[in-house]
């Protein structure tokens, strides 16, 4: 109760002090803004003197085509690591290993290596 009374007196006197400090036309509630922005001042001013980059990626037809080509080459390279997948986009291929299903491709990791296949079904042992 004493603490509450003390806090009340402090608040009242602070408010009174603020009232008396007001200059002409100053907002009487300016202290609320001072309290609010004092807490955020560091984070809001840390970028001063720098350039904040808020860029966006604009669509560029030529660059988009180059990016598509790069991704396709990378994908084909990765596929080539898994058993020389025939590349239909480019002319590159392993002669004699063109049959993706028979040679293995991804399927050799998905299915048992011993067995036989009819149509799209693999019978492994």
């Amino acid at each position, binding site marked *: 109760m004493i603490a509450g009374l003390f806090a009340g007196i402090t608040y009242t006197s602070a408010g009174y002090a603020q009232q008396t400090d007001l200059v002409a036309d100053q907002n009487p*509630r300016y*202290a609320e*803004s001072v309290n609010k*922005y004092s807490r955020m*001042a560091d*984070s809001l*001013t840390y970028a001063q003197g720098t350039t904040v980059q808020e860029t966006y990626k604009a669509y560029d037809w030529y660059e988009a085509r180059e990016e598509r080509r790069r991704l396709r080459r990378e994908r084909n390279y990765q596929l080539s690591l898994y058993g020389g997948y025939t590349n239909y986009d480019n002319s590159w291929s392993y002669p004699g290993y063109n049959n993706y299903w028979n040679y293995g491709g991804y399927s050799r990791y998905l299915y048992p290596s011993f067995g036989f296949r009819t149509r799209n079904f693999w019978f492994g042992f």
Partner: protein
Amino acid sequence: MQLKRIITIAAFAVSGLIITSCSRQVTRVSTDETIDVSGNWNNTDSRLVAQELTQNILGAAWLSNHLEQNAGKKPVVIVGMVQNKSHEHIEAETFVKDVEQAFLQTQRVRLVQGGKKREELRAEKADQQSNASVSSMKKFGLENGADYILQGSINSIVDSHKRKKVVYYQVNLELTNIQTNEVVWIGEKKIAKYVKN
């Protein structure tokens, strides 16, 4: 011998063509020049919007009405949000800044900062309360309150079939009295483009 010479010349010509086609060429152009490449929103559209809206807002009745009602006191405007509801990335700041610049150049309208810049200003002021000398410290509670807020929207309609496309943009800016919520001015610019691939 003759054939060999022709082949050599042809090889030089082809290699020259390849080299020139691979090298990037950049040419500076005037910002007032209209260059349409893809049919998307570009600097010409932004310029046309800025010209139309600047001319319109400064010549409209709201300004004279305000001066009359407030004994010649200039209106204070804050720039609010512009909503892009079109199908493209469009930066409204490119034409809104032109409108703001016209306000200041003509000295008929006063501007106050809003958004992130205002936050930074207040933070700087808060920083000064504990770091700047008393004589140079700026006080809180003395900002200019805006009389009007400028808000806007960008809309588009795309009509396409096979290789043909018609793109329509409508840019609207509106000025509202903050005290009364009364809309005192609406400006618009319509742009239509026919694109054939």
